[in-house]
């Protein structure tokens, strides 16, 4: 038997962000506080990317960073806030200034748009949005935002939402092998659909594991290597958000972030200190401090 040649898809965070052209549409992985690709948002900011359109169900600190730093000027989303902590202050300011356009959908609508893109069909039918302003009012999507029709089979009203095929999908997972087999612990949110709908998929992972480990627990592989173009191995990718079984959210940092973003000056201070003031993710982690990061490490059996 000849030894199969194994492709190594690993690249650096800087190389991965560099691939994303200005003006790209991006599926953004993670859900709520879970597995947010914060480090990727930092790197896009350091590389001064512009005019990105971020497509996701709901993201929080990462969306605040990207609209706050002027990296993204369009969102196709269902939700942005820091949940229990309060409103998204940067998004609120950028919308009021006219510098951020938000096309509003619901969570199910966005998840189904990603599913449609993954299935290679132009739209998906849903039973949400009908009768509301989300169906009546649109921004940059215009009359391509959605369509309500009488079902050709049953005659009932049904809402069609257009599928999404973004230029890039960015997904953060717990473990990956170098060929791209990616394992997610805990909930997947909309990352199954989101990882399959993009033209290119970049997977960020906390930990590199051997292919033998993948083949030992194949049911944990939520994204098979065949979908994956590039892999970035990076610990604490989601800080100050959480990564199931790896680390908890950094509540003190989150509260500081949320407080600072209440003013433009405060946000600029955060941006200069934690994002532009460091050259790399490892420098960011040094700034947070390993003593602090170690305290966030997940404890068995809780996963946080």
């Amino acid at each position, binding site marked *: 038997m000849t030894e199969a040649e194994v492709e190594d898809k690993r690249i650096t965070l800087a190389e991965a962000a560099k691939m994303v052209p200005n003006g790209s549409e991006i599926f953004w992985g993670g859900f709520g506080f879970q597995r947010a690709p914060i480090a990727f948002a930092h790197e896009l900011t350091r590389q001064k990317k512009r005019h990105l359109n971020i497509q996701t169900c709901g993201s929080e600190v990462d969306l605040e960073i990207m609209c706050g730093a002027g990296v993204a000027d369009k969102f196709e989303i269902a*939700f942005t806030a820091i949940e*229990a902590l309060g409103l998204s202050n940067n998004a609120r300011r950028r919308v009021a200034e006219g510098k951020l356009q938000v096309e509003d959908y619901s969570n199910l609508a966005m998840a189904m748009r990603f599913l449609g893109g993954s299935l290679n069909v132009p739209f998906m039918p849903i039973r949400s949005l009908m009768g509301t302003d989300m169906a009546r009012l649109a921004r940059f999507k215009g009359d391509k935002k959605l369509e309500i029709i009488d079902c050709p089979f049953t005659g009932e009203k049904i809402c069609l939402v257009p599928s999404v095929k973004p230029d890039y999908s960015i997904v953060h997972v717990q473990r990956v092998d170098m060929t791209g087999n990616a394992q997610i612990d805990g909930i997947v949110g909309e990352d199954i659909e989101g990882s399959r709908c993009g033209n290119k998929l970049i997977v960020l992972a906390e930990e590199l594991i051997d292919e033998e480990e993948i083949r030992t627990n194949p049911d944990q592989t939520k994204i098979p290597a065949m979908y994956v173009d590039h892999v970035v191995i990076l610990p604490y990718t989601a800080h100050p958000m959480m990564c199931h079984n790896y680390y908890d959210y950094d509540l003190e940092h989150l509260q500081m972030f949320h407080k600072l973003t209440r003013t433009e000056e405060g946000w600029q201070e955060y941006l200069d200190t934690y994002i532009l003031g460091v050259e790399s993710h490892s420098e960011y982690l040094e700034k947070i401090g390993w003593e602090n990061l170690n305290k966030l490490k997940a404890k068995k059996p809780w996963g946080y």
Partner: protein
Amino acid sequence: MVEYSKIEFLVACASSHVRDGEAVFGGTGMPLLAALLAKESHAPNANLISEAGFIDARPREVPLSVADTRYYYGCSAAIGLIETLGFILQGGRIDVGFLGAAQIDEYGNLNTTYIGPFEKPLVKLPGSGGGNDIASSAKRLIIMMTHDKRKFVKKLDYFTSPGHLEGPGSREKWSLVGGGPEVVITDMCQMGFDPESLKIRLMSVHPGFTVQDVLDNVMFDLIVPEDVPITSEPTQEQIDIMHKLDPKGIYLGKGG
């Protein structure tokens, strides 16, 4: 006499509307506490579901996010969003959804998206999240809000989630799966819906408030029935359970 804050009253009141064995969308904040309180008291078999993918959850600490790992340990399945909002909710399997809002109109329609005109919003609010999906497809809706006159409006700045839309026949017209809002609970009163017009109707006022207080604090014509009872107070047991669920006062400490 039992001592309680306004938030504790609101949570206890909302929890009483959950029946044993029901499938409930909990979310975070006050609605989550209400669902957990129901599970710890009169509805131990309630199935608490978070839209991020947690099913039959029994968190030992209050989650700060619908995707918080605190939802994971002890739940019976952890899947994803198409499962919860698609197969379970749109599939017609959710009995109760809890929602809050920045604005509500007389038909129980909700705004969680913008304050000010759509063209030039003054305040960007969180948006629908799963709210529109839940309002469209849950069998019943329980709406929880702190009472502020500016929230009870004649016309919403933005219509995010459907209540009874324009009244009788509206939900049927759009083939919505769910039954719409059943009760609106504030820190001042409980409101239901008039079965004929599907407009908001006062149900009970909380101790310390009068019908006139409520009328002074809504901007639409509230239907007031002849008999408006006083809402029953929470029990000491309910207060104790709430403090056990949220010992750090993450949700109970806010706005009380």
